[in-house]
């Protein structure tokens, strides 16, 4: 019934390898341009159009240089196809491509322009370094290269932009966040999200920053780079530097309007197909409810979204000010879902002193999100309901003919109020003081506050929950506050060919979280919604709660850099972290690292390669980093608390609350520690192609997991402990190319490739013995209670599917299987020993690609990403292809022809290759040549998620790493995510078409 959509089936011939090869060739072709010399002249202006004397002009990659005269003019003989670089203090360096047509060149210095890799400054944590001096693996993404579009979670801007960094959005729900995974992650229990650092403030929520406020993102990947963040550095560090006031005055508006729609629904029987089936089978009991309902379409809508951002910038020589305000209303393609955000950002800085000796810098970020969480059970209901059931009764009420196991999903979306609101705030004040010529001291205090309040009301006429409760209302409030103080001193000294720098610092972090909530049911009227809990007459002992907790982290850190002759570079760091979360016996951890780099291209013996190899650097680094996210507060202690442990006092006939021990204490609890070796090359070819290649091997020890412990003797069956070992090994390639850089036509491209192999090395130690952890719970699916689809076991990666191998259908339509001996057997003959490795959810290759073209005032760009080689369990399909369903419940179109007669059973029959490539954005823009001085107006049209290339049969091959709260409210409580399982929880990703406008007014 569903018209065939734009999903293109991946043919076997179109393999990953050929695609990668072709893309690679495209990049190489960029270098094939011949070189000639010619004399050029030009004039350099400042941002306001005034001539700029004393600016330096250098031919890139040579010592061929000059400076502009009093009238801002210069003359230089340069190679055709090469480029010149114009720099001036206080302005961003400008690069100009020299073509055979170049003659008189006017260069206008910009406040915030393109910067050459050679002088690019990279945030490394507690300071910056020139990119050329780096010894660790750090990827940088500039504002222009970030993903654009209807973005409701800031993580999305990095999708496909950094080799080795996967941005996983579990669904198309605007209110759903994203998950970041760098180099495969390191932890079973703990968060695998990289540490987020915003303007030097570590550990903040990335969504405090809106995409339009980001200047650069530096991703610290290897341990030698992240060890400066110690016990929080194991999953990488993402340093976001936001825009601040630049010289001049400008006002910018950017706006975007879009419509989003669902491109791809499951092909289920239509009402008429269902009727045909009933007629053909002669089933007399089947109930035809008379309607023609596409339940998937019934819960969907066309989403209309918009965003507006206004920015004011003002800067002088010694001060700057920038403020922005933005509004986003991102509707979801499922009714009643969406996200509305209002955000603001102010940054100001002021230098004082004759030599700019002191700098005060302050920033404030704030935003408010509003959204209405939806009940994900709607998807299961929509797939299952008989298509002849009407959405509404003739009298206009929601029909509720099926009260059996599946309910009217439109009713579930409509007849309840869920209002959530999140407030985020981040403020900081930074003071920098230069002293004794070579020292710079920085003090930084900051506060991050994050609060979520919620209100839920299920009215007395809501079929699920509301009716039985007689109206149910709930309010919740939760907040946390991170207060940080940091003080560090930098030292820099150049003595002849020796460059020395050093850093020492101290930081203190205090995290306080607290919250409360209340619920009541039994409301005489539905008029109050969730605004008058006291009016509910039914209540229970556990209906109110509050909590509070605190942790702190104290750190000392140091870094030393040494370089000799610009050829040999050495970095060493050490951090000592003490955390209140750690057990009594392990309060302090030390995290050292060292790395070296050799700029091979600066060696005399490389002179012969100067024509094509502009830069070649080898880096080797090793370090130890930690992850303490999985611990949580108070996990090491033996504590008593009030759970839901009420007890009855027969004398008074009343109930009281018991105090019980809550957990197995573990005084040895500590961080997970990751040792990582990284070897990398940076290179620049033909002055056009730059890139880097990384090889890494990391080994995580003391893996935190809530291991099953024997009862007796333990109090509870699980215990958080440091036991196992996991390894991740991989390679990454990043390429950037200015394929064509002309006066009118420009073409640049970027490509990222990542390959990671993960393995659990150990799960036991002398104290705790674990053979296998069953994960990927199927609990909550009919007939699958307590069943698992995956294992975590030594020798396998996380997310390994483990089960029976199918041998296709037998003549009666029953799925048959291979036993351990490889013989085909029926289901009844299977024993546990026949279970085997059925593949895993780890991709073999992740790819990101982007290209931008501009011709005159036109621009065109696209970006896409893909993952290849990973498997997914299509549990939705497994449950729907059930011969017991018709005529009561719906089935996929395919089912009727499939001949399947066996009831759902987990096996690789339902495991699919989930490889995909997604075209993320495609943009066409036109910049209007305005008569207004120095102003710019750009209009553009953008398509997002226009197509996905995949062979996956479900709604979407990109399946979240974390299990949604399972169907029927059952939550996978094993403490482990259930990655790669498509189980009725795929909120479809919309295809979006937008029109946008950017307008900049300069004074």
């Amino acid at each position, binding site marked *: 019934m569903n018209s065939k959509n734009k999903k293109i089936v991946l043919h076997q011939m179109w393999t990953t390898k050929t695609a990668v090869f072709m893309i690679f060739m495209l990049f190489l072709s960029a270098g094939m341009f011949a070189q000639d010399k010619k004399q050029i002249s030009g004039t350099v202006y400042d941002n306001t159009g005034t001539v700029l004397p004393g600016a330096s002009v250098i031919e890139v990659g040579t010592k061929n240089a000059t400076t502009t005269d009093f009238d801002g003019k210069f003359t230089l003989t340069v190679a055709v196809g090469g480029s010149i670089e114009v720099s001036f203090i206080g302005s961003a360096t400008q690069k100009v491509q020299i073509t055979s047509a170049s003659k008189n060149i006017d260069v206008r210095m910009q406040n915030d322009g393109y910067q050459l890799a050679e002088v690019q400054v990279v945030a490394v944590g507690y300071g910056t370094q020139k990119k050329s001096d780096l010894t660790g693996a750090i990827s940088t993404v500039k504002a222009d290269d970030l993903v654009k579009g209807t973005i409701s979670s800031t993580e999305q801007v990095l999708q496909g932009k950094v080799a080795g960094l996967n941005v996983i959005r579990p669904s198309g729900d605007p209110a759903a966040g994203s998950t970041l995974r760098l180099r495969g992650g390191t932890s079973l229990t703990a968060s695998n999200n990289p540490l987020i650092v915003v303007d030097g403030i570590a550990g903040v929520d990335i969504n405090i920053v809106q995409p339009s406020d980001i200047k650069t993102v530096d991703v610290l990947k290897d341990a030698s780079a992240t060890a400066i963040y110690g016990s929080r550095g194991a999953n990488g560090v993402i340093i976001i530097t936001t825009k601040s006031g630049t010289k001049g005055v400008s006002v910018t508006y950017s706006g975007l309007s879009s419509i989003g729609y669902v491109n791809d629904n499951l092909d289920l029987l239509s009402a008429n197909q269902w009727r045909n089936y009933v007629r053909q089978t002669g089933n007399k009991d089947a109930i035809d409810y008379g309607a023609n309902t596409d339940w998937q379409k019934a819960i969907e809508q066309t989403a209309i979204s918009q965003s507006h951002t206004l920015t004011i910038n003002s800067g002088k020589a010694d001060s700057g000010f920038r403020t922005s305000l933005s509004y986003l209303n991102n509707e979801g393609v499922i009714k009643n879902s969406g996200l509305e955000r209002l955000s603001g950002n102010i940054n100001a800085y002021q230098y004082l002193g004759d030599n700019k000796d002191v700098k005060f810098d302050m920033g404030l970020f704030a935003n408010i999100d509003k959204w209405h969480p939806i009940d994900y059970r709607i998807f299961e209901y929509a797939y299952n309901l008989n298509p002849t059931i009407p959405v509404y009764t003739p009298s206009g009420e929601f029909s509720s003919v099926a*009260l059996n196991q599946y309910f009217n999903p439109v009713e579930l979306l409509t007849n309840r109020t869920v209002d959530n609101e999140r407030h985020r705030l981040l403020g900081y004040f930074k*003071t920098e003081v230069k002293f004794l010529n070579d020292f710079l001291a920085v003090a930084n205090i900051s506060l991050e506050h994050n609060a979520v309040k919620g209100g839920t009301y299920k009215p007395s006429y809501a079929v699920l929950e509301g009716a039985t409760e007689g109206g149910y209302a709930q309010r919740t409030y939760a907040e946390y506050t991170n207060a940080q103080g940091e003080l560090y001193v930098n030292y820099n000294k150049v003595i002849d060919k020796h460059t020395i720098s050093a850093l020492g610092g101290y930081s203190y972090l205090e995290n306080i979280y607290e919250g409360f909530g209340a619920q009541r049911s039994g409301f005489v009227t539905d008029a109050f919604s969730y605004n008058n809990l006291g009016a509910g007459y039914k209540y229970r002992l556990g209906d109110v709660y509050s909590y509070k907790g605190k942790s702190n982290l104290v750190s000392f850190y140091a870094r030393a850099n040494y370089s000799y002759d610009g050829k040999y570079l050495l970095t060493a760091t050490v951090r000592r972290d003490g955390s209140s979360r750690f057990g009594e016996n392990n309060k302090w951890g030390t995290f050292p690292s060292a790395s070296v780099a050799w700029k091979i291209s600066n060696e005399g013996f490389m002179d012969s390669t100067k024509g094509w190899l502009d830069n070649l650097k080898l880096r080797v680094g090793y370090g130890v980093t930690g992850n303490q996210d999985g611990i949580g507060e108070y996990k090491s202690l033996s504590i008593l608390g009030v759970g839901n442990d009420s007890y009855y006092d027969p004398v008074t006939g009343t109930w*009281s609350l018991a105090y019980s021990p809550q957990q197995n204490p573990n005084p040895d609890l500590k961080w997970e520690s990751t040792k990582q070796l990284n070897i990398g090359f940076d290179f620049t070819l033909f002055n056009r192609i730059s890139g880097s290649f990384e090889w890494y091997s990391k080994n995580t020890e003391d893996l935190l997991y809530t291991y099953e412990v024997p009862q007796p*003797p333990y*109090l509870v*069956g699980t215990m958080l402990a440091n036991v196992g070992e996991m390894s991740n090994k991989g390679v990454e390639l990043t390429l950037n190319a200015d394929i064509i850089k002309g006066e009118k036509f420009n073409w640049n491209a970027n490509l990222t490739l990542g390959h990671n192999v993960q393995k659990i090395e150990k799960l036991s130690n002398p104290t705790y013995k*674990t053979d296998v952890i069953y994960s990927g719970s199927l609990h909550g699916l009919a*007939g699958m209670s307590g069943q698992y689809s995956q294992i975590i076991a030594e020798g396998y990666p996380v997310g390994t599917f483990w089960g029976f191998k199918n041998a296709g259908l037998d003549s009666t339509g029953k799925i048959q299987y291979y036993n351990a001996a490889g013989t085909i057997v029926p289901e009844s003959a299977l024993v546990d020993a026949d279970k085997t490795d059925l593949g895993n959810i780890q991709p073999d290759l992740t790819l990101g690609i982007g290209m931008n073209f501009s011709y005159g005032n036109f621009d065109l760009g696209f970006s896409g990403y893909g993952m290849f080689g990973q498997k997914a369990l299509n549990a939705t399909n497994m449950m729907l292809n059930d011969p017991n369903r018709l005529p*009561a419940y719906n089935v996929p179109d395919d089912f009727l022809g499939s001949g399947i007669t066996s009831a759902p059973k987990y096996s690789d029959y339902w495991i699919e290759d989930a490889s995909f490539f997604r075209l993320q954005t495609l943009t066409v823009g036109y910049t209007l040549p305005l008569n207004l001085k120095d102003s710019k107006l750009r209009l553009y049209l953008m398509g997002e998620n226009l197509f996905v290339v995949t062979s996956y049969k479900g709604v979407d091959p990109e399946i979240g790493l974390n299990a949604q709260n399972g169907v029927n409210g059952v939550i996978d409580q094993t403490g482990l995510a259930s990655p790669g399982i498509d189980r009725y929880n795929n909120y479809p990703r919309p295809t979006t078409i937008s029109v946008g406008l950017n307008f900049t007014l300069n004074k």
Partner: protein
Amino acid sequence: MKIKITAAILMSMLFTISCTDLSEDLYDKVEDGNFGNTSKEVDALVGGAYSSLRGFADGISNNYPTCEYVFFLNETVSDEATIPTRGSNWYDGGQYQDAQTHHWKADNRMILSAWRYNYTGIAKINSIIYQIDKSSLSDTSKAPIYAELKALRAYYYYNLLDLFGNVPIVTDFEDTSLPSNSTRKQVYDFVEKELTDAIPHLNANVVYSKMTKNVAYSLLARLYLNSEAFIGTARWQDCLDMCQKISGYSLAPDFFANFATENQKSPEIIFAIPYDSKAGTVGNYMNSMSCHYLHKLTVSATADYPWSANGMCAQPGVYSAFADTDKRKKCMVAGDQINLATGQVIIMDNGEKLTYTEHVNSVTDAKENEGVRLGKYEMKEGETWERDHDLVVIRYAEILMMQAECYVRLGSPDLAKPFLQQVTSRAGAELPATIDLHFIDQELLREFTFEGRRRTDNIRFGTFFLPWWEKGDTEKYRAIFPIPSTVLSTNANLKQNPGYPVN
């Protein structure tokens, strides 16, 4: 220069707030050792021992044990109940089919659940004893508290003795070394001694839901009744003696008063696990684990009754074991199910009528409506998942039946009659002229249907090892369950029960 000085002062202020203190401040919890010094605090600790009886749901194995997994285990391996696979529902890896056919393996989640339910209760009580040890109470005030806690712990050990036999005995909270098995005899002796030692300190009055002298006598009576099955030594007279010490109870005139929403008023209940919807106690919804999804329409015209899962039902033969005049027959729901809103028989989604039949096609493939359902506890419109009726563990009818059985076994069936008479006359059933063990066995089935204790009776009467519906002969070693496989794999000191494969 002034600027620099000012800045330096600002920066040094940071150091004044800095510190390296890493102690954890607790706000909403207390660290152990700081609790249990006042009588109120002691009550709150001891209360935890009682609340542990309700068990918990943790997704690993324990889905509300008293109405799900532990209850399921005892029922599905017995001759009174079954959980057949209906379509794809209730397959769940074959764990219920294995229980029905007596082919359970050591990785069966119901078995793990039974193990964890009891050992979690034991560990909790051990931890409470440890708290009481540390408390500043006087030794005299501690004595009755220890007695109450240890007798409760003996209840858990009695369950383990019955279910697993050779289990480790752990009494010290601080000792986290991995224990090894005790023999079934050692566990038997431990239970007997703990209860006997506790009795002098226990409350002699009838106190609802608390561990009193009467409850301890009842548990000892159960122990002696099953002594032959547990350790091979019959102790029928000891059982009789113990029963005769029990006082203060009488049969409730209405059998179903024991299973009503307000069943705490029944004069018959010796020990119960209290539940109360306002106290937020979840896990006593066994009717909902049994009835059809649409059963709520028979309880409430507006379907104001929780969902049911269409699982457990009676084995064929159980319903017809009751005479139609037997009032207790209503503990099962059978026949056409009427929608209160329409007065018509409920139509299932597949278009067929919802009629519960005694016939069940097979344990591997049953239809949605097959099997008569559990309806012993009251079903009331407006109930929530938190039910109000208490879960009955021991009631006076059992004391009467134990005495009757002992007299029959001791060769004096006539002496059994006065006890049986009370039970059967309340049910409106006739007492046969000759009382034999077969009659006692069948009367136990009718009196205690779905009360989670049939397996023990089946084993004591030996019927457990004979074929019944969907089951052939059972090997003797299956009188106790295997030690769960994950417990064995995490504790190398434990040995598997005899007869079961080591892995």
